[in-house]
């Protein structure tokens, strides 16, 4: 039997859904990408400014389910002020946790993001949680758009080099 989704919809996720952090747009960001999950219609934009190697500012906006929005919100909080290398390491850890490749405790940087560990038990919803992270990766790679489908789908293909 799959995990209890109510355990997933816990207060921290519901709170980030209600009051998303870093929500909005940036003027003239140094990096930007758009992420789409064509099957369910989740659609978000992630924009950030790198000052040297440091993520100075980051914002997201879009139309999505609670899991996707909370994941995006917590992602921006987690990577703000971090280096691009640290952010890319976290992207890999998060995607590995969300897809069940590693346990939350085996991701040294996962921290509070462990609230999403239950998503690996809900295969139809994994894409919702990883879309923001995939979009952030696309922004770093200077790709205009990310998708959770086909070859761009991290469920089927590894992410590009971090």
């Amino acid at each position: 039997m799959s995990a209890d989704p109510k355990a997933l919809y816990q207060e921290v996720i519901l709170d980030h859904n209600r009051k998303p952090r870093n929500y909005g747009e940036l003027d003239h960001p140094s990096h930007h990408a758009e992420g789409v999950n064509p099957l369910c219609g989740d659609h978000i934009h992630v924009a950030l400014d790198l000052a040297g190697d440091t993520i100075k500012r980051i914002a997201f906006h879009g139309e999505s389910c609670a899991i996707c929005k909370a994941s995006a919100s917590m992602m921006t909080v987690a990577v703000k002020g971090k280096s691009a290398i640290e952010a890319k390491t976290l992207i890999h850890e998060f995607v590995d946790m969300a897809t069940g490749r590693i346990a939350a405790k085996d991701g040294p940087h996962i921290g509070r993001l462990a609230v999403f560990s239950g998503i690996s038990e809900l295969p139809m919803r994994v894409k919702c949680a990883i879309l923001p992270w995939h979009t952030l990766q696309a922004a770093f790679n200077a790709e205009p758009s990310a998708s959770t489908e086909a070859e761009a789908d991290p469920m089927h293909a590894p992410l590009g080099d971090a």
Partner: protein
Amino acid sequence: MSNTPAVTTPPAFDVARIRADFPILGLTVAGKPLVYLDNAASSQMPQPVIDRLVRYQTTEHANIHRAVHYLSETATTAYEAARARLQRFINAREAREVIFTSGTTEGINLVMHGWGRKNINAGDEIILTVLEHHSNIVPWQMLATEKGAILRVVPINDAGELLVDEYEALFNERTRLVSVGHVSNALGSINPVKQMIAFAHARGVPVLVDGAQAAPHLAVDVQDLDCDFYAFSGHKMCGPTGIGILYGRAALLEAMQPFKGGGDMIHTVTFEKTTYNTIPNKFEAGTPPIAAAIGLGAAVDYLCGIGMPAIAAHEHELLRYATEHLSALPGVHLIGTAQDKAAVLSFAVQGIHPHDVGTLLNQEGVAVRTGHHCAQPLMARLGVVATSRASFAFYNTLADVDALVAGIRSVQKVFA
């Protein structure tokens, strides 16, 4: 079942007895009894159909239309008997007008390739509606791109009803085909196809009806509708997946190009020339899903045993009851409120994305579909990216509606 007059179904219709025929309805999901409300996507299979499949595979299977041995003869007889059952089910004039396909999608693609590529040319127009499923849009778009033809789209009002005046205004001397859904998969709207067909025929334009959502719920009579093509799927009407029907008027089918080449669709083959078999075999190249076709025949027997009018009446009662109770829920908004409607309820829960609704309803054992329902142009017209959809079958009960309503309340509680 309840005996309260307001919620009874006709006495001849015993939903408890019917449910006992469907082993899967006895499942528990997340520790709760399964409440299966995703019938527009695929329906469940009753024991008599399962038994028929088992009997076929156990005692009757061989390839059809080929060998002279006992099993091949038995399989061929059963396969053709299934075709005859389907013929009666839709009241086609002749069995050869009933082609086994893999489903509605293949039926529409067959007409696109076999009829459309021969008869549609640059500048010609095809009329569709904004309610269509992608499977009744994309094939025509492919044809239009190939030929330089034009798609014209009938709009709807906010209730999800086709604007028949606008439909009639789309006709001109370049109109070559109308392809319209009988019942909308996303909203449940029942389209006035008989009236639309009469209008098209008065202008010499043939009509294809996508009956995927109608055949399981209404008594379909292709002669009364006077449609030229009617496509539907087995798995939405208690049959197996991978089988469906394309009805076509014999004269049209005979004049059409084959869709797929291969065995069984030929009369003679040399390397210089192939002559094609007669209909329906011309369109059934290769070994068909024999078991699935026979299973669909059994499904039709099962449905007819209950009676399509009784099925429609029970589902109408489910629709009435569900509409009343969902409308009464604060924060729930019904999408698609056509006067003439099948038992499909698309809805939005204020402030909660459909995918969150779907995941949390599943936790209550309630299976609904969430998403764009393969009708993205319709979602764009309605100004939403996705909806939640509860779609009913004759084996659903008023208690299932109550479980849905309680489930939505519990979803709202999580997000409160």
